[in-house]
């Protein structure tokens, strides 16, 4: 590949495995950064070389920009793929890459910065003629927040300007609660993001989370690869994603995908990104939520319905090539669903469950895809997130994808630790899910309670 011959993969877990696979297919040499705990991990074994960058704590390894740049330079890599999480959306890494003549496989540092500031992102979306959720500018004290809340109407969300990904948000149901929640929200924002700026947004109670995958090259070509429905969330963390959305009509699809491309075009966005929207199911109206400037966890569902390898496409545009497809060539075929298999105990309030995997047997077969770094004997470290695998099924239609998912979940064997597999089995058999009758609060408001009542048995 022109411009890139050796890639440093600055991530771990399943996404490192995923990126390494794309490297192999493109004929690129690979180096993966590993913490001390990850020295014997699957990515370390799959890469041409693994370099140990520090102790297990992410603060001393995967989050150290200088060390990662030194690792790239020391191994003669010419590009860094950041994956998701860690430094993927940190302008610091993208900038350091530019300073040292390395290719950052992601958007420009400036775009990371613009979209990382949620208030700035709202303005950009508004400027592109896309509806934004009714809300305020920056509020400096509880008084301003109260005034903004009255204007947009309770309930409201207090959001951290530097937040995103479901972090740094607080719901305020009534005016009298506002003061207390305001202090809590700004305090949390300061400790989590080092930035206590807060703004107010109307809270949509019956919403679906719809997001659009876009990708652009440096020649101004920006295309969308349709939407994903990520409404099944628990505490703002996605559990199940699917494409296309059962709640989106062909007309709405055109509108929402067009809105996403307009936002991308507004800033001349390069590489892969996701524009997230809230779809108000009571009024049939969609609003810009935020933009994620990275490859996302749930990108496989888009790959399965479009036939386009997003990570390979990321490398292509980062190296300065044209996108391999035009908008007209992108076709949506079939239906894909992804279940996130986490090391959590669904029967114990989803508490994390690190430990040794004594047995790991993942499902196989036509229409089944498993993206994972786990194997029998693998130790799930408490230092990192709990994602063990992404189980993806693809059928000719939604019903077939669900049937396949039920089969795949039933034949997925993981022993030694608790996982979210039984909870996913519960979802895949629930009438509300089968009928596509869900919202972003369905899991928390309804399913978790029903699951507990059933004693964690998905088949009762």
């Amino acid at each position, binding site marked *: 590949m022109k411009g890139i011959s050796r890639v440093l993969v600055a991530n771990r877990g399943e996404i490192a495995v995923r990126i390494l696979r794309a490297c192999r297919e493109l004929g690129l040499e690979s180096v993966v950064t590993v913490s*001390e705990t990850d020295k014997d991990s699957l990515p370390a074994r799959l890469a041409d*070389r693994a370099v*140990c960058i520090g102790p297990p704590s992410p603060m001393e390894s995967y989050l150290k920009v200088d060390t990662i740049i030194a690792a790239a330079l020391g191994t003669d890599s010419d590009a860094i793929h950041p994956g998701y999480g860690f430094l993927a959306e940190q302008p610091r890494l993208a900038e350091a890459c530019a300073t040292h003549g390395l290719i950052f496989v992601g958007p420009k540092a400036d775009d990371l910065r613009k979209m990382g500031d949620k208030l700035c992102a709202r303005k950009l979306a508004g400027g592109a003629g896309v509806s934004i959720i009714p809300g305020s500018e920056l509020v400096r004290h509880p008084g301003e927040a109260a005034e903004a809340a009255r204007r947009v109407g309770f309930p409201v969300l207090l959001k951290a300007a530097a937040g995103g990904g479901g972090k740094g948000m607080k719901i305020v149901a009534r005016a009298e609660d506002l003061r207390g929640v305001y202090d809590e929200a700004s305090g949390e924002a300061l400790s989590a993001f080092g930035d206590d700026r807060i703004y107010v947004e109307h809270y949509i109670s019956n919403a679906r989370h719809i997001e659009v995958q876009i990708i652009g090259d440096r020649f101004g070509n920006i295309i969308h690869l349709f939407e994903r429905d990520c409404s099944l969330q628990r505490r703002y963390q996605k559990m199940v994603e699917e494409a296309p959305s059962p709640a989106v009509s062909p007309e709405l699809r055109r509108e929402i995908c067009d809105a996403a491309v307009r936002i991308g075009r507004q800033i001349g966005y390069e590489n892969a990104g996701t524009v997230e929207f809230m779809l108000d199911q009571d009024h049939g109206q969609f609003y810009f939520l935020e933009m994620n400037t990275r490859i996302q966890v749930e990108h496989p569902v888009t790959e399965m319905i479009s036939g386009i390898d997003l990570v390979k496409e990321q490398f292509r545009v980062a190296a300065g090539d044209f996108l391999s497809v035009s908008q007209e060539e992108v076709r949506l075929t079939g239906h894909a669903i992804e279940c996130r298999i986490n090391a959590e105990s669904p029967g114990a309030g989803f508490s994390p469950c690190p430990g040794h995997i004594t047995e790991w047997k993942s499902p196989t077969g036509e229409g089944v895809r498993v993206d994972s770094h786990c194997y029998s004997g693998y130790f799930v470290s408490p230092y990192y997130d709990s994602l063990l695998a992404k189980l993806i099924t693809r059928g000719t239609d939604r019903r077939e994808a669900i049937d396949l998912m039920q089969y795949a979940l039933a034949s997925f064997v993981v022993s030694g630790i608790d996982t979210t597999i039984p909870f996913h089995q519960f979802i895949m058999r629930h009438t509300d899910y089968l009928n596509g009758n869900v919202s972003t609060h369905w899991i928390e408001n309804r399913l978790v309670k029903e699951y507990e009542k059933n004693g964690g048995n998905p088949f009762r």
Partner: protein
Amino acid sequence: MDTISQDEVVQILRIMEESNFDELCLEMGDFKLILKKHGDSELIQRPSQTGEISGHPEAVQERQSAPMDEKQTESGKAASASGKDKREIEAIGGDPEEGYIPIRSPMLGTFYRAPKPGAPPFVEVGRWVSADDSVCIIEVMKLFNTVKANIRGRIVKVCAENGQMVEYQQTLFLVEEVDGAGETDKEEIPS
């Protein structure tokens, strides 16, 4: 005269730098100094006739003849590729884990044996070190971190190559731990 001071080495380096010569080999009794302008330089203090460092004088000889491009890393893949290195260690007295104590890199970065380019290395094979002695520098993006020996003993092997990237916890030196080696006599060879 069978020894040479640090200042004299610096002086020789300066003369060498200004000269048209690429290589210099200086031998004075048991002392041998090899300087290469565009390569690696080595300063080797051989055991004197009167004071034996250990029962393995050939160990030092062996190191002297080891190729400079040889890499030894902690990662599994690279370790298997450096079987020659392993044999060499075995030849001089067993497994590094058993016989000698490793000084490991506290971080990933570039390994420098000397405080600045052209200066003599902090330590050499055969040199006695105490815990507070600096043994090398690890550079991470222009930030220079001095690594201390943290152990009292004799350097028996330099395991990383000057100017190359080393990984976190990679073995940089092997040290033969000696309880008796005091602060004052570290420069001398106990008889």
